[in-house]
């Protein structure tokens, strides 16, 4: 059972990590807790659904297209909702409030368009049978989710660490003003990050929509508190942190079901997060605290 | 008055202060100089309890300060300013200074909520004292404007007034003249002299040698966390090690 539970933890953790990657990127660079991330996640799932059902595309073709679409939505949110607030003296939570507005607007518009009912990908979009490896059973989709989320994390990390663009993104994340003076197209970086983060969120929406067989306007909502927990546990805007945080939450949930009680699963998971923060007040990979005085 | 004994501070493996000991006698202006990164600000942070030292003690008179939380150190009689200005930008100057008087206004939550006479009396006394302190630094005309709109030099002065409001026995000043031009620095020197004459003991960090040499009766020099010299300005100026590490030869 333990082996199976570890696999369960790994796949669940990957789901959380996948959701959190884009979330943490926006948080790190734009310094906004983007509460519209769940809405973008949902939009990605619907985009893929339309592409599969209406355009009869293969899911692996529809996935990148859906990511483009949700990326565009993210870009739109950034330009319409967040950009007007940049550089203005507003309460630092105002952008977050604006994203709440965007989330409400998008989810309810989606409900108006697609209806309140749950939709799903047609049968055979993806093989659903599981196969056995030793004592473990796992589906193709689960493997895909684990691999995709790890690959995306690695890719993001390499880009951020090694490339010129990545360094520019990190520069903007730390200090937009200075970045301007280095000749970095700061607004361009903001747009790129908004797009990428939303595309990642949309991709997560497709994969989770596939694995849960349910696409509905509010599908992003239950993931929001978990996403926030993951990115803060990982540390402000840290890609590695999102991954580790996601896996941690997955393991904490699965193990508390397996060895404690499923009744108290969320309490155990969030209680643990609470305790970890008391020990590491800036999360697992959080930036060192500012120099004092 | 202020006795520093064997203070050592490490950040991870980096030893920033190494067995630093010296004493600041009552009533004088004492200078603390040294190259960038020598550990001067860190020493201030250790004295005020913002950082915890690895070993060593700090005494104010007979009172042991080491181990006290920052607000208790302040209450014990240490006031300070910060190297990178930390005024309360959204409060008025008057309010800034009155925050400094926090511990000296004698009323509590009940006094406030029930509008007891103690509240009104103490607030009035506080306001008057705050205006007086602002006038020491020629800021009284701006008492009711928002502190964030002050010029850089004025903000530094406001920090001084605010530190004075804590009624310190020893005042720690971190680079008061940074970003001021020589003329402004001179004006500031006058004001610091006045403060000192009113009986405050001052420990001062500064890179502007004219100010240091012009004001301080004694000077300590830190280099890489080690105290390399201590003495009267004339001695320090001639100390070859200090010249080599800090002042530069061809002056």
């Amino acid at each position: 059972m333990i082996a199976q539970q570890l696999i369960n933890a790994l796949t669940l953790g990957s789901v959380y990590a996948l959701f959190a990657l884009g979330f943490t990127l926006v948080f790190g660079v734009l310094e906004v807790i983007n509460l519209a991330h769940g809405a973008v996640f949902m939009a990605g799932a619907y985009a893929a659904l339309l592409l599969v059902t209406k355009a009869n595309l293969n899911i692996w073709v529809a996935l990148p297209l859906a990511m483009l679409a949700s990326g565009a939505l993210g870009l739109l949110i950034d330009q319409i909702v967040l950009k007007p607030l940049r550089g203005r003296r507003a309460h630092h939570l105002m952008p977050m409030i604006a994203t709440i507005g965007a989330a409400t607007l998008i989810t309810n518009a989606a409900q108006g368009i697609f209806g309140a009912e749950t939709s799903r990908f047609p049968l055979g979009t993806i093989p659903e049978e599981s196969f056995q490896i030793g004592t473990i059973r796992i589906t193709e989709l689960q493997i895909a989710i684990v691999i995709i989320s790890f690959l995306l994390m690695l890719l993001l990390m390499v880009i951020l660490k090694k490339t010129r663009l990545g360094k520019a993104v990190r520069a903007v994340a730390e200090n937009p003003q200075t970045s301007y003076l280095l000749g970095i197209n700061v607004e361009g970086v903001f747009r790129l990050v908004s797009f990428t983060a939303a595309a990642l969120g949309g991709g997560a929406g497709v994969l989770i929509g596939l694995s849960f067989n349910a696409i509905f306007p509010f599908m992003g909502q239950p993931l929001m508190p978990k996403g926030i927990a993951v990115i803060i546990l990982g540390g402000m805007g840290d890609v590695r942190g999102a991954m580790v945080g996601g896996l941690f939450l997955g393991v904490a949930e699965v193990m508390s079901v397996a060895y404690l009680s499923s009744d108290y699963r969320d309490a155990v998971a969030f209680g643990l997060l609470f305790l970890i923060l008391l020990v590491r007040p800036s999360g697992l990979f959080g930036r060192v605290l500012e120099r004092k005085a | 008055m202020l006795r520093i004994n064997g203070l050592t501070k490490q950040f991870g493996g980096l030893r920033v202060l190494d067995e630093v000991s010296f004493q600041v006698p009552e009533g004088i202006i004492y200078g603390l100089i040294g190259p960038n990164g020598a550990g001067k600000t860190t020493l201030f942070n250790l004295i005020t309890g913002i950082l915890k030292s690895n070993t060593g003690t700090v005494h104010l008179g007979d009172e042991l300060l080491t181990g006290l939380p920052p607000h208790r150190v302040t209450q014990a009689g240490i006031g300070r300013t910060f190297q990178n200005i930390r005024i309360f930008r959204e409060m008025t100057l008057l309010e800034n200074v009155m925050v400094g008087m926090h511990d000296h206004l004698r009323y509590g939550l009940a006094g406030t909520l029930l509008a007891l006479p103690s509240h009104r009396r103490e607030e009035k006394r506080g306001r008057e004292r705050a205006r007086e302190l602002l006038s020491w630094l020629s800021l009284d005309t701006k008492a009711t404007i928002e502190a964030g709109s002050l010029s850089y030099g004025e903000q530094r002065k406001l920090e001084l007034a605010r530190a004075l409001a804590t009624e310190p026995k020893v005042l720690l000043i971190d680079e008061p003249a940074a970003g001021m031009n020589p003329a402004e620095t001179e004006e500031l020197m006058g004001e610091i002299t006045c403060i000192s004459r009113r009986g405050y003991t001052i420990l001062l960090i500064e890179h502007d040698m004219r100010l240091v040499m012009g004001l301080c009766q004694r000077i300590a020099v830190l280099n890489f966390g080690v105290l390399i010299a201590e003495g009267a300005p004339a001695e320090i100026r001639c100390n070859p090690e200090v010249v080599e590490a800090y002042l530069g030869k061809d002056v």
Partner: protein
Amino acid sequence: MATNKHLLEIVGLAVNYGHIRAVHQLDLTIQQGEIVALIGANGAGKSTTLLAVSGLLKPSAGTILFEGKDVGRLRPQEIVQHGLIQVPEGRAILTTLTVLENLELGAYSRKNRREAAQDLEVVLDRFPILRERGDLPAGNLSGGEQQMLAIGRALMGRPRLLLLDEPSMGLAPLVVQGIFEILQEINKTGTSILLVEQNARQALRVANRGYVLETGKIVLSDTASNLLENQKVIDAYLGGGKDCCSVD
């Protein structure tokens, strides 16, 4: 025409913060190869002027010509590409990036990567301490080292005009001397410099010409040596005669 000779020509510049006018009717020119000092009291508008030149603040009036081209309406990154590079007030290094990454970003807007790699060597030779600290997060550097990093990073952009905002602030006397020496060396290699300094005496010593800014207006401009003698300047900015670093 005269304009063609100027490297930078600012005419009638005005900059506002919301409703507050920080700079009015400012005229200023820099010739190729010059060091020009801009001095003035706290809040006079020096930093505001530099930020406007770099495109971070939008001027409400006036023109800024760089090598005859109007850069006043360009975006900051385009201005950097023209070779107008600023070391801002307070060093503004990127503390979470390493020293080398900071330097590399200095060459961000340059196309030729090989040349940039060569320049990195030149900068590291000029500031050997930066080579030593290359892989450290820049936030760990001391104040003086951070200032060197900021200047080195600006050099990585091959500036034709280097704007420096109070490079000596908060630095030890020895380091201040070093910085001014470095500025002169940089200038000798053909980079023009606009230097904003509170340390007015030192600044005027290395400069060819100087401007005095008071509450947003230029009130005086002359050669540096004349300004050093000017009684009004001495009273307001240089203080009671003695050099701040003289120890006699």
